[in-house]
């Protein structure tokens, strides 16, 4: 039996401990804001926080989140009003939108460590998150807007 705290709530899991967290979130908890994109940690669509650090839930086994604290996009803010979410809406970042929750979650962990990021630092940090629609320039702008608000 694996115990894990997700968005402040204790959850238990008694299935295959090798199953990635992504499928526990999506198939069992119906938390579908975390997306399946590649299953190999290559696109970032499944990004969540483990003890505050961005991780790829598609390659993180349930056994590796036992006793940990997980935050998904559903738990990022109470009312969808995290500075990044507000900045995302202000800049009209999303096109299809599928990758955006992963982008926001990765950016949220990044901004906790770097309050005044440069373009290069944003590019380096966000290069693990693919957006096939090509919203990168707005993502970069939104991260800067949010960084200002959070500073």
């Amino acid at each position, binding site marked *: 039996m694996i115990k894990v705290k997700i968005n402040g709530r204790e959850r238990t899991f008694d*299935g295959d401990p090798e199953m990635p967290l992504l499928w526990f979130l999506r198939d069992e908890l119906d938390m579908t804001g975390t997306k399946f994109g590649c299953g190999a*940690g290559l696109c970032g669509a499944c990004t969540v926080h483990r003890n505050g650090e961005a991780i790829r839930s598609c390659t993180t086994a349930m056994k590796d989140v036992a006793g940990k604290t997980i935050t998904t996009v559903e738990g990022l803010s109470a009312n969808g009003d995290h500075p990044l979410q507000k900045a995302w809406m202000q800049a009209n970042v999303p096109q299809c*939108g599928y990758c955006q*929750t992963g982008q926001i979650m990765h950016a949220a962990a990044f901004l906790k460590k770097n309050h005044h990021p440069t373009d290069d630092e944003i590019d380096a940090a*966000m290069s693990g998150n693919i957006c096939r629609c090509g919203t990168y320039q707005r993502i970069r702008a939104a991260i800067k807007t949010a960084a200002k608000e959070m500073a």
Partner: protein
Amino acid sequence: MSIENVSRRNFLGGVFSAGALVLAARILPEEALADTNEYHGKAASAALRPSIYLGVEPDGTVYIVTHRSEMGTGIRTTLPLVAADELDADWSKVKIEQGIGDKRYGDQNTDGSKSIRGFFVAFREAGASARTMLVQAAAAQWGVSASECKAQLHVVTHTPSGRKLSYGELAQAAGKLPVPKPEALQFKPKSEWRYIGKESQIADLADICTGKAVFGMDVKRPGMLYASVERPPVMGGSVQSMDDKAALQVRGVKQTASIDPFKPPYTFQPLGGVAVIADSTWAAFQGRKKLKIEWNNGANASHDSEQYKKELLETARKPGKVVRNIGDVDAAFAKGGKIVDAEYYVPLLAHATMEPPVALAEFRDGKVEAWVPTQNPQAVQDTVAGALGIKPEDVTCHVTLLGGGFGRKSKPDYVAEAAILSKKTGKPIKLVWSREDDLRFDYYHAVAGMYHKAAMDDKGKTTAWLHRSVFPSISSMNDASSMYGFNVEYGMGLNDMPFDIPNHRAENGPAKAHVRIGWLRSVANIYHVFSGLSFADELAHAAGRDPLEYQLELIGNGRIIDFKSQGVADYWNYGESYEKFPFDTARLRKVLEIAGEKSGWGKRKPGNGWGIGVAASRSFTSYVASVVEVEVDKNGKIHIPRTWQVADVGMVINPDRVRSQFEGAAVMGASIALSGEISLSDGRVKQSNFNTYPVARMNQAPLRTDVHIVESSALPGGVGEPGVPPFVPAFANAVFAATGKRVRNTYTTFLLVGNSPEKFGLIPRNIVVWHHTVIIGLPLRDGCAAD
């Protein structure tokens, strides 16, 4: 500005009030309005219903149906904006409903950049009809002339007396009036437009940013099981023998089921194979790994991309089928002068939508209900019906949000798989494609070999141009013996090159398809415009001229191109009337000239690792010029600091979504130019995930793209696709300007520039390395970098 997202409720079908007004578009017969069912949402049963796309309820709510699919263009918001503007509705009282698949909506295949082109008029008429009827109802109630009444922001006012009635108060009375004839409608003058051409936000914005938006991957039904399919690794193969004992031992796996291989031609049929059905996606994936299958590989088992590339380029050296002819190129070449020639190559490309193909289907009592991220819900109905031997009207297709489309999700093979498995298991089945499935079993953008040859006089003027193109055609989808392209592919940059050359011939050589060929954002324009506009740049350099100036000279004077007199009997023109949407070279010249001004063209001398390139093309009836700036460092690593996209797309409804499409097209263009290749050996696709099929990431995409929309009152043209074609040659031309090395094969950019893929910084291994070094705390499983 925001509107409530009703998509999830609509998946369950709407419940209608007894007294609302709903309007149907003119393209539909009157009886279409009468026949509604539980899936047609609230618009269908509203008190006032002047169009199948629109209804007004007594509480003032305006329901507008979007029958086109939302895959990132914003169309789910933009078409309703058109109707809401003409109705002069208060946008906060508008609710958008997603239409199910239904022929009564007219064409629903959301591709070809044609949603606005095709339905601007219908939605405008829907809004105008509703407004007219509301005004008439108010006038009747007051006993005044309708001409004394004005509809404004959800209220009709009798101007002389100042009396007011809201749209809601008028809906029931208006719903009893006859729908006006389209020719009797009066549209609002441009000066009164409230939403068209103004800044708006997409309806799903907040849901997307908070993870509440519902994509196909997110839909669930009670009792649902998950399925993953092992497909024949070679196109046209089939199962010879199968052992599922180990698969059935995997925890969570319920059963396996076979799917028959397609009967040629491949069309939208499933590829066949063996499905593993389980109680979670993960269990289905795990079970699939344990299947032991022997395959019959069939006729494509020896297909090899390297060999095929040689064949395409050899064929391009031989005379082909003439698809356009002006003057006599052979005579012009015989005269001598300066002869320039070059061959170009674009490999197979995969769509790689962020959401892989996925479908939920539920077979019950001989009928299917499906929830699908699809660009083409009517094709879902037809394909599922064909696969199960039922009638298309017995297939209900709910359309979810799409996590990207790019043409892949117009082909519903994945929905047929889900429906077949639901029928076999008696359970609702969610069929999930892995990323590996997506890249290995796509309907690929065609690989193409092109040959260009030109003659130049002593003043550097191009006097003759031969353009040959060889590619496996999309027509192989419906004709297994297909060897040649057709007018749709020819009309994308092969038989409509805009240059005014006295001797010009375009030819298409034969090629057989060995994989499924489909259409990908901007389709044949990708290879035709890449090669044609790269060659134009080569000619400029051969003539010792400025590339932008030379391109303008090649285009010549502003004119409407007369294709009929040039041996083009069936110019496709993107399916549009040539009278309404002629090929106007003056508009092409204009976007080029503006691109030159905006980018400061000519102000800095290229070379020493800095370069700038330009290209322009017309596609989907819109005119676009791209300017791309590149920096190439001493290791051969390419950086794109800035690009300009100048577009004349005719009238613009939603400017921000137009800009976003052109920003995105620059990134997709960068993916094509920098990193994309699907290749096969032994008939099997070699790439499998984003490590072996890299697409542009933030640090590889253009740092900044400036979009300039040309003010235009022309009919609305396409927006989703036209930004891609000119970007790729503009990039290649910039690389030449920076390095003196010519990119003639999009995939080998790095070889030409850096001479060593390791130096290029874009090879798959490096992407994996980032994950270890740059992104702290990311666990990388063994094997995920193995490909």
